[in-house]
């Protein structure tokens, strides 16, 4: 085994793991609303309006510290979308039964789901700037 196994197939995964751990550490330890090194949303920065994703960084911070309610207050859509996205990215590996996979692909992540996501995102986006 080389000391710096750039070419090995595990190197990519090690790199990703290091990145993820670093990311989680930074987001757990620092408050995005206080740390100047967190990227801010251009829309919010220049217009003062919230986009549909604004508050996600803060939500991640509170989520990592186990403060569900604070995370919800930062961006409820992010909290709702998180399990949906997690399942969508992994279901092919979790479920081997093609019937379940087809059901998920065509019903849970199909056309109606797509329209619904679009509508929910746009309504949430507009709504949160009115309230």
């Amino acid at each position, binding site marked *: 085994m080389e000391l710096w196994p750039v070419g090995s197939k595990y190197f990519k995964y090690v790199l990703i793991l290091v990145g993820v751990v670093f990311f989680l550490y930074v987001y757990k330890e620092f408050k995005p609303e206080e740390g100047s*090194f967190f990227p801010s949303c251009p829309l919010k920065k220049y217009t003062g309006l919230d986009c*549909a*994703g604004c508050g996600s960084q803060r939500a991640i911070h509170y989520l990592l510290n186990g403060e569900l309610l604070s995370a919800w207050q930062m961006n409820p859509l992010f909290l709702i979308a998180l399990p*949906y*996205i997690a399942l*969508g*990215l992994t279901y092919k590996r979790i479920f081997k039964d093609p019937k379940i996979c*087809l059901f998920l692909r065509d019903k849970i992540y199909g056309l109606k789901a797509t329209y619904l996501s679009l509508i929910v*995102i746009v309504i949430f*986006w507009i709504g949160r700037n009115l309230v």
Partner: protein
Amino acid sequence: MEENTNVSTETGGGVKPKNWLVESILVTILCCLPFGIAGIVNASKVDSAWAQGNYDEANRAAEQAGKWTKIGFFLGLAGVVIYILIFVVMGVGGAMAGGF
């Protein structure tokens, strides 16, 4: 990004292309709303075209959906990397003196 491999349909157009819905939503709420929306709109085109039997159209929409989602993803990634670089260049020491 994994491909749509083991899930095939009974219809005549082969394997339904990946619609990028999940990735588009992720891009929408984590970084780049316009690109994410473009991805979701194309995701809807993938499924509606496929349901009508327009397999070429579905494949084209899938390509578009993937394109916008990836643009959003890499733009977001680049943004984060640039932010980290700026932070490092400006000096971790300065930030620490500032009370971290």
